[in-house]
């Protein structure tokens, strides 16, 4: 199959959806001629023009507010927030407006809004440009939360997100942007709410999101050599969550490691662990282990940053405590 990078796959989904539906448009900082801070929107501006690939002022509240107002009056905006850390300046428009509008209005509004934003560390961008804040949004009824780990998933899930009639938070990972993978051509939709078993295995279930899926697959490879078999599950969408696939794997292996790059404390891994501790306790042969960032802001210096961020070796260590 044809290979695309994760960012090319995202751009392709945007391009196809914009061709398909004239109500789809993009807005964000430097998404036009500049092509996006990480180059994701690239040349879309050339095909669709300034109106549909709109450069905005550095006003995240206005970006999301405008997107909400446009969505609720018939458009299908895709807003880019340059770093997910900047969601902190537009939380109200996401959490109190977009997420709740339909409900507060008794079901009479639709808010088909997609917010794309990168998470993650690894590029020495320090504490205000490296966070992974997806867990916050999973706490807010009314939002959907998507987090692809591969180029193909990025394309299929973004297509679904744009077509979804609800506000969808779409979290990309900076380090994944250049990573290539097979990506189906043409229309490709992955329904929200379906986990993917990225690798089958029998000894330990690793539930991983975003870049930690890659780390988990590395760990699986390394451990396979030692005769330990990991099953790697990528929920892909955190809300709605495919509990079934997760619980079936736990039943099979009896051992669980949950891995995400976000700070462990109150990360989405806590929610997954809690679900398992409620619904699959009897299957468990060992404690549930979580792997995530250590409880610190992300530091600048590479040695410090690598220490705080989780890696495949942390997954390996967690697995070894279980088997």
């Amino acid at each position, binding site marked *: 199959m044809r290979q695309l990078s994760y960012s090319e796959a995202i751009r392709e989904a945007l391009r196809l959806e914009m061709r398909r539906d004239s109500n789809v448009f993009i807005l964000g900082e430097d998404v036009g001629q500049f092509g996006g801070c990480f180059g994701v929107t690239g040349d879309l501006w050339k095909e669709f023009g300034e109106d549909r690939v709109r450069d905005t002022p550095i*006003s995240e509240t206005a970006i999301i507010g405008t997107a909400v107002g446009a969505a609720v009056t018939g458009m299908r905006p895709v807003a880019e927030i340059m770093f997910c850390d900047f969601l902190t300046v537009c939380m109200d428009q996401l959490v109190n407006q977009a997420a709740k509008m339909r*409900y507060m209005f008794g079901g009479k509004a639709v808010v088909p809004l997609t917010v794309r934003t990168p998470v993650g560390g690894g590029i020495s961008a320090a504490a205000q440009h490296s966070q992974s804040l997806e867990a916050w949004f999973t706490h807010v009824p009314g939002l959907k939360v998507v987090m692809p780990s591969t180029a193909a998933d990025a394309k299929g899930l973004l297509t679904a997100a744009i077509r979804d009639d609800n506000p969808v938070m779409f979290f990309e990972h900076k380090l994944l942007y250049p990573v290539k993978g097979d990506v189906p051509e043409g229309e490709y939709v992955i329904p929200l709410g379906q986990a993917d078993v990225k690798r089958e295995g029998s000894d330990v279930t690793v539930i991983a999101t975003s870049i930690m899926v890659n780390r988990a697959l590395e760990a699986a490879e390394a451990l396979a050599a030692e005769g330990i078999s990991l099953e790697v599950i990528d929920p892909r969408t955190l809300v709605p969550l495919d509990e079934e696939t997760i619980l079936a794997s736990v039943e099979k292996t009896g051992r669980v490691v949950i891995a995400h790059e976000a700070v462990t404390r109150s990360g989405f891994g806590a929610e997954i662990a809690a679900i398992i501790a409620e619904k699959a306790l009897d299957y468990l042969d060992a404690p549930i282990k979580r792997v995530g960032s250590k409880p610190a802001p992300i530091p600048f210096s590479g040695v410090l940053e690598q220490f705080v961020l989780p890696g495949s070796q942390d997954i390996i260590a967690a697995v070894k405590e279980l088997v």
Partner: protein
Amino acid sequence: MEKEKLVDLYRQMVRVRQFETKVSELFAQGKIPGFVHLYIGEEATAVGACANLRPDDYITSTHRGHGHCLAKGGDMKLMMAELFGKKTGYCKGKGGSMHIADMDVGILGANGIVGGGLGIAPGAGLSAKLRGTDQVTACFFGDGASNQTTFHEGINIASIWRLPVIFICENNQYGISLHQSKHQRVADVADRAVAYGIPGVVVDGNDVMAVYEAVGEAVKRARAGEGPTLIEAKTYRWHGHFEGDPTVYRSEKELAEWKERCPILRFGKHLVEMGVATEQELDTIKAEVDNEVEEAVRFAEESPLPVPEEALEDIYA
């Protein structure tokens, strides 16, 4: 303006006044729960502004939204039922006073977040522009809201993209207990238009014709693609910030002075003086509106409460 329309402006103001007066009573009786922010005294602003709008135009409203919703064509019965938390209300009892919306007549929602609508209104404007319609959006907000995030970012984005939005600041002198002179150093919120390179207009918010005309001009500009206008309507709320507020922060004298400038009395007098209506006709309107309000209350009272499980519906489309 033709007589019919003039009389209708009067009727709309009376509808808001009587509705709110009744809500105040019902709140005191414990029939309406939650927070209730009344629009009494400010009727001319919503009514004068909305008289310029078509049903397919949009408004964004505030926590003090009953007046806007009625003036934009909201259904009084559905509003009252919503205030009662009934299943037949606008939001099926899920929203209450601060979240009344009617997508069919362009009411994009009252809003519990001060300045919330200032974020959303530019989006409705952009939507009309991208869809190639000439719909406009009127965005109501308070003097207090003019110090929020969304005021600055929202008006700026509307200005650079020349969006068809009319920003209407209802300067009722206070944000809860804080007088305008203590929350900003400008005398006129309209002066802030300079910061966005758009026209800023001060108008007597208790003069329905003045509001009508100022907003009319702005609507014309917006429909013509000339971008947003900031209009400041000077007015006053007669009641407390919310029902139950003892208003320790203001004087009886100040209130009395503003009551002198009642937008309804004033416009009624004007209509009679101009020979557009007689005192009797105005009384008839009041009586008719009384009936309308009574009917709305009856509808609300007789409506069923929602069923608990309905709380889990309408979250996702």
